[in-house]
């Protein structure tokens, strides 16, 4: 379906799409002095990311303290916007990006099928990552994960009044009080809309759409609207942004309903046409290093698949939360339906 739609577009002409069938993942690689030297000679790496801009820039800064000779250009947008951008660029023969990362797992299945990715496996990933959190063919691996959570302002809403289940959100007492991100922009919300529509059916969203919700775009934004005090309750939004705001002292509390909370996995990969292939390879290995993953957890509030990462005290460990997983293979054909239903019920 997507393939068809794409080839219809004019872009397709410029596309050398050769669905690659990799027998197995390439040998894991380590950061060698040769790789570092080659990367320094390139002097630059371009990182397309959907992680919150402050977190991504912090990570880039950390990379630069290790390799001051290599500048990192962070291009942050919502997952679906990153996907749109790379799609437009690749179909018109523009190869700007070195390393790409979004929170919509479907994208990476798509990139892989189109043959846009360069398979490579950093040693750290080979040694420490769970097998189901990396591509068997070595095209990509789960760089981060985060939940899409309900959360509320403790000063604007009593704990007793706060919702306990997803259906509670349909209660008239929450009308005008909620904020929500958009699945057409955010991969996290695309994933969570999919799993919740499976769990609760579209009637749930139809009713939710009548609650006069403030509609924002990125899943980084609902937590920021809570922090501003613009709304008292977020329906979805990045858990890691909430963690960061709690760390800053904002009166916000997360709700993990018993029915489960949707999980978004953010994969990362190196692009085949990367203009700075060595810097990309180095940066990619850096992304999965214990160092970077720990920084993501401490500063960014992201969940990590690195077993050595220590989570800050006070955060509910993943093991104690019921998680709703999404299957990208099942999600992909549903995307047009999700978009059109969403527009029907929420207006945009």
């Amino acid at each position, binding site marked *: 379906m997507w393939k068809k739609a794409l080839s219809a577009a*004019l872009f397709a002409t410029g596309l050398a799409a050769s669905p690659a069938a990799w027998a197995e993942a390439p040998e894991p690689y380590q950061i060698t002095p040769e790789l570092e030297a080659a990367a320094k000679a390139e002097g630059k790496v371009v990182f397309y990311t959907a992680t919150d801009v402050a977190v991504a820039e912090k990570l880039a800064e950390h990379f630069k303290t290790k390799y001051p000779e290599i500048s*990192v250009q*962070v291009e942050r*947008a919502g997952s679906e916007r990153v996907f749109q951008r790379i799609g437009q*660029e690749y179909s018109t023969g523009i190869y700007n990006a070195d390393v790409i990362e979004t929170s919509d797992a479907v994208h990476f299945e798509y990139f892989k099928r189109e043959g846009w990715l360069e398979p490579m496996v950093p040693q750290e990933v080979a040694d420490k990552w769970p097998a189901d959190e990396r591509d068997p063919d070595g095209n990509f691996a789960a760089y981060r994960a985060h939940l899409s959570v309900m959360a509320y302002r403790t000063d604007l809403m009593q704990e007793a009044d706060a919702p306990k289940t997803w259906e509670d959100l349909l209660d008239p007492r929450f009308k*005008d009080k909620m904020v929500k991100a958009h699945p057409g922009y955010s991969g996290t919300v695309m994933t969570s809309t999919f799993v919740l529509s499976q769990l609760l059916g579209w009637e749930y969203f139809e009713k939710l759409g009548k609650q006069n919700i403030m509609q924002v775009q990125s899943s980084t934004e609902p937590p920021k609207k809570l922090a*501003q005090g*613009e709304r008292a309750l977020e329906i979805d939004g990045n858990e890691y942004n909430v963690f960061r705001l709690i760390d800053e002292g904002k009166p916000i509390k997360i709700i993990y309903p018993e029915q489960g909370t949707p999980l978004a996995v953010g994969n990362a990969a190196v692009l085949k046409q990367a203009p700075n292939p060595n810097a990309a390879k180095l940066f990619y290995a850096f992304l999965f290093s214990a160092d970077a993953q720990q920084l993501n957890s401490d500063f960014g509030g992201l969940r990590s698949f690195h077993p050595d990462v220590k989570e800050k005290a006070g955060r509910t460990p993943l093991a104690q939360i019921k998680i709703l997983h999404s299957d990208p293979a099942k999600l992909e054909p549903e995307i047009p339906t999700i978009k059109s239903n969403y527009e029907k019920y929420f*207006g945009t």
Partner: protein
Amino acid sequence: MIMTSNVQVQGRRRGIDLSWPTFALLTLVLSVLVLLPLFWLAFYSFRSDTGGGVTFDNFIALVADPTLVRAYGLAIGMALAVGLLSCLVATPMAWLVARTDLPGRRMIRMLVTASFVTPPFLGAIAYEILAAPNSGIVNIIYRYLFRLDSSAYLVNIYTFTGLIFAIACFTFPYVFTLVANALDKVPSDLEDASSILGGKAMTTLRKVTIPLVLPAMLAGTLIAILQALTMFGSPAILALPAGFHVITTKIWSLFQFPPRLGLAAAAALPLLIITVILLRAQKSILGRKGYTVLGGKSGTPRITELGPWKWVAIAFVFCVLSLTILLPYLAILKTAFTGTVGDPINLSTLTLRHWKFVLFEFSATQLALRNTFLLGFLTATAVTAIALIVSYLVTRRSVPGSGFLGLLATAPVAIPGIVLGVGLFLSYANPTFQLYGTIWILLIAFMTIELPAGYQQMSSAFSGVHPELEEAGRIMGASRLRTLWDITAPLLRTSVVAAWCFVFVGTIRELSATILLTTANTKLVSVIIYDLNESGDLGAICVLGMILLAASFAVVFVANRVPVLGGSQMNARG
């Protein structure tokens, strides 16, 4: 310079005039600029998004798809309301400034012009900060004053009416400027005649003055309507949170990957047609010159003394200026220096962290600033140069058929930014041209968008310079381009500078075409502001907005002061 001196030599020896080649070249360039995107737009609107081939599906969807129809309905309703509101506010204000003894009139005119420099999307963001129902500063103060609970609010910007208000704040200067200028020129003898025949002040106003400026009012209102209809930034910032699309945001959403280019092209066409109709309406209204008396030969306009009404007038003008300039700018200033929008201002909340983030941590800042100002300079210079030559050829009728050139230079005014963006994307984002991803596609877009404004200004300036001076130059043996460069251009210095500034400011605040044409390496400040808005980083936006505004004001100021560019004349004429 080298080229022109060659021209001179050739011109003398062989009597060859470069008018023809210039004319041909310009016709070609302008045709490519204007017609190519429109051709592809039309082509794609008949192309199926799913299988290629010719189809009418896209046009059927235009009527059958309720989301598209609703987006058009809302956009038209919004635009009409914006036009009406702009007219209602701007007309009395223009009259007060042009025809009464209101104190500080020149200052008021300047401030209204300042609100033209403010990009509308920045204004929309400022109003998010001011008038969001819960965290909006106005609502916080309201609740505090009346000791209301947290669910009460006075104003909500995330509504249809809120959107209309936020757009009108930045479109009313169009009506204001046109009406104020018209009032300046209404001859006082007609008004005197009315008074002599026994008409009271109000009767004269109602029966003489208002009918005389009615065309200017209507024309200004139509421009405001047009601006609102084709605006992308403000609706994207205010309408989407409220849960509705207008047509520009809807077209933008069609670019989500995989893009539906055919539908986007078809959805853009009615916008183009509406714009053409509105512009024709404007032309036919303004064209009735016998009705408007814009001769300006009969004395200074009569000034009405306000007397006790002065205070009411001052209150009204102050209110308008606060809403359009003072409050938004204060909101931006406050947000740039405090932690989050809802924070009160005190020593503990004051912070430079947004500045630190934008200036030192955010890697897109430098690139975007450089691109923005580079493109601003390039576009302003190129457009002013082209507009100068085109308006010379057209007003002096030096080449038969030059009227066509004028038409080409004006035509882009009918192409809304987002439509042009779609058209240019279709024209140049393919493996043949590969302009997408470079700043050249943006330069082409900006030149096309700004050409009509530049041309309009230059051609009106040309009609003010008598050709006899040029004839003298020609008699002495200089070629046309040489006389243009040596005689006419210096005489037009102030107009050239004004046109340059106008185009520069217009380029810097452009978002609707830009949003479809930028990539990572061709980021502009307007686009990163939009990106940051989508992730809710208001503090960083306000810092960037302040840098953008400061730089725009600085450029305009410098351009008007540099003596070589005719700064002193500008001052003398006021």
